[in-house]
């Protein structure tokens, strides 16, 4: 529950600051005329709708992962809880996902410099490393199943599969978007504003998934146990 508390403090702070900047304090009945107050400086363009939509979607996905983490810590309190051994391949996977994120960031930088060839290469590297990350995750699952750590034998195993599974599904969704972007770039001769936005959205989403994965990985290997203890102490 402390996880949710932190998450909400963050979301509400952002929302309330934004509302204050949008003028929820003004008195509309006193203001007349076509443009009462446009707070945007001249020349600045509004962010594209897709970017706003992605930001909101990340808040939703962040809420989902925070809830899973909260459930993880609450359930982890029970005496039957026994974490499975962590397959070594996860360290390699972490490296792959970080590489993927870096590649997409490189693609974004290249897109801003209108370097088509570089964007293409960076996107392909990003997609490939993300693909290998997914294969690596499946490898980790297989390893655990071979060692007979089934989802039904302990809730900790079940959480391992659930967390990695939900994260992987989000990455698969991201790969669909990335494939569409790559397809658009492949047929392009020069980088348009729209393409840059596409690449940027993919990069943001990848950084978010990397961030989630790092926290999740810390939870799974037990680095976050201290946090769980603090939560429980707060609650009792």
């Amino acid at each position, binding site marked *: *529950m402390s996880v*949710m508390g932190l998450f*909400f403090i963050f*979301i*509400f702070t952002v*929302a*309330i600051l934004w*509302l204050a900047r*949008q*003028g*929820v*304090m*003004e*008195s*509309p*009945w*006193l*203001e*007349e*005329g*076509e*443009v*009462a*107050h*446009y*707070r*945007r*400086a*001249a*020349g*600045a363009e*509004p962010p594209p*709708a897709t970017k*706003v*939509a992605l930001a*909101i*979607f990340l*808040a*939703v996905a962040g*809420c*989902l992962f925070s*809830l*899973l983490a909260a*459930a993880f810590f*609450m*359930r982890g309190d*029970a*005496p*039957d*809880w026994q974490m499975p051994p962590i397959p070594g391949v996860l360290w390699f996977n972490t490296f792959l996902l970080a590489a993927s994120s870096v590649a997409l960031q490189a693609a974004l930088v290249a897109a801003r410099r209108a370097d088509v060839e570089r964007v293409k290469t960076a996107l392909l590297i990003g997609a490939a490393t993300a693909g290998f990350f997914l294969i690596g995750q499946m490898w980790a699952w297989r390893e655990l199943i071979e060692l007979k750590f089934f*989802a*039904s034998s*302990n*809730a900790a195993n*079940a*959480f391992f599969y*659930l967390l990695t599974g*939900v994260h992987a599904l989000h990455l698969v969704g991201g790969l669909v978007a990335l494939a569409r972007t790559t397809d658009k770039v492949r047929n392009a001769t020069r980088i348009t504003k729209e393409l840059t936005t596409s690449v940027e959205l993919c990069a943001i989403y990848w950084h978010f998934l990397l961030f989630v994965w790092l926290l999740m990985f810390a939870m799974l290997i037990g680095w976050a146990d201290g946090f769980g203890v603090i939560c429980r102490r707060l*609650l*009792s």
Partner: protein
Amino acid sequence: MTDASVPQNVAPPPAEVEDVELYHAHSWITKYVFCQDAKVIAIQYAGTAITVGILALVLSWVIRLQLAFPGAIPFIDAQVYYQSVTMHGMIMVVYMLTAIFLGGFGNYLIPLMVGARDMVFPYVNMLSYWVYLIATLVLVASYFFPGGPTGAGWTLYPPQSILTGTPGHEWGIILMLASLILFIIGFTMGGLNYVVTVLQARTRGMTLMRMPLTVWGIFAAAVMALLAFPGLFVACVMLLLDRTLGTSFFVPSIVELGEHKEYVGGSPILFQHLFWFFGHPEVYIVALPAFGIVSDLISVHARKNIFGYRMMVWAIIAIGVLSMVVWGHHMYVSGMDPWFGFFFAVTTLAIAVPTALKVYNWVLTLWHADIHFTTPMLFALGFLVTFVNGGITGLYLGNVIVDVPLSATLFVVAHFHMVMGIAPVLVIFGAIYHWYPKITGRMMDERLGKIHFWITFLGAYAIFFPMHYLGVLGMPRRFYEMGETAFVPASATTLNIFITITALAVGFAQSIFFYNLFKSLKYGAPAGGNPWRAASLEWQTPETPPGHGNWGKQLPVVYRWPYGYSVPGAPEDYLPQNAPPVRGERSP
């Protein structure tokens, strides 16, 4: 002259947003079935929601018949009773109210009220409806699977919801969870659209503080729903895994029919936390759009600006924020730490402050106003009374010490039906009577509308008011049969019979509404563009019903807030939002 008000260092946004490519239908199918126009999607959403709503209404009769005449109707056995209770609750809360307010009114009103051509992502919007429809079909399909739908109660508490003693444990529960997961995916697509449209597609001059309160209510509710539904999503996925793969997220080690099940150490309380983390905001997801709509109905039909517009907006935001931290008051009887109970009681009672503020502002809007008792106004006033009534019993139940003895009684049933059953439904009716002329171009019959209002309003009171007394007597909820119970007097049975007969009558009386709805489609008096002489933007469209793209060639430009009623010195008693100011005119 308008440009004089633009400060030097800022640039107004373009009058026409170029990159909104309008979707064009090419065939009958893409125009009326797989349509991407928000107005058509709104009708589809509302139609589906009302259809399942009628199913849930019939199910409530089944519950009432059993309670008044136990055992008299042969097909209502314990299994059917619990299945009816479950399906009635889940359909009404999620598939009817949420869908009609956000999917129905949200889709129709947001683009029109903020001056947009359509939702920002029309394709995703269409997808949202179809996923919702599939979710509804999956839910209803559980009637045709062996064992029927689940009878776990709408809260689906494990372990009982997935054990063999509960009706529908074979297929019903699986289909219910799958349907909810689908619903949430569909809703997330729609919700993103509503929020982004409000943020990005407002027309020139439409600042946030010039939006009608309807849009504010729907906007805040959509944001809350986006943050609350993941709770239900996680709970459903984990419960589904417990049921199908035998994981032990929620189910503790348990002996069932002498057999030790494979579950170990699961936490049923964890499910309750996740469920109510969604469940409580859900109340306000339904209530906030209703608050917004009622504010607009009262202002238009009382010909007066809404009292304290700013406070109304702040109250909506405050309610939205507070409602995310009160879920524990649904779990007072789960044996929680007293300090927790204290915390949740405080936050729960704190919500009464912004809510009461809204009620005062509605009443002060009516004070010395030119009230027109039209059908929408009657429904808005009916809402006010019902909501205050249900809200006050909420203050009782928000206190741990009062809730514990009342929690398992009909008092709770009476409370939440008043506050989130009858009150929002009255708003839905009022809103349909109010916006029907814009949607169809024809008026609904006022006389039938008034008859419908009085039967529904008085009838609803006759049903739910006595229920409070039954609850205080200690009459338990959820029970299939009372049997021989010493503390329930014979008069309680008489009261139960009275409630059931009224419920049947009020339910049937809704046919007056449907008759009116369909008859007016063809025979209603032509409405013209703005029959209520309302100031907000949706009444100023060049065509009625609004054409595809809503605004003809040019997007409207907004010059003032949407509550310019009875402005001194104005030529008419209302000033449309998009009417250019006249030189020397006083501010509204």
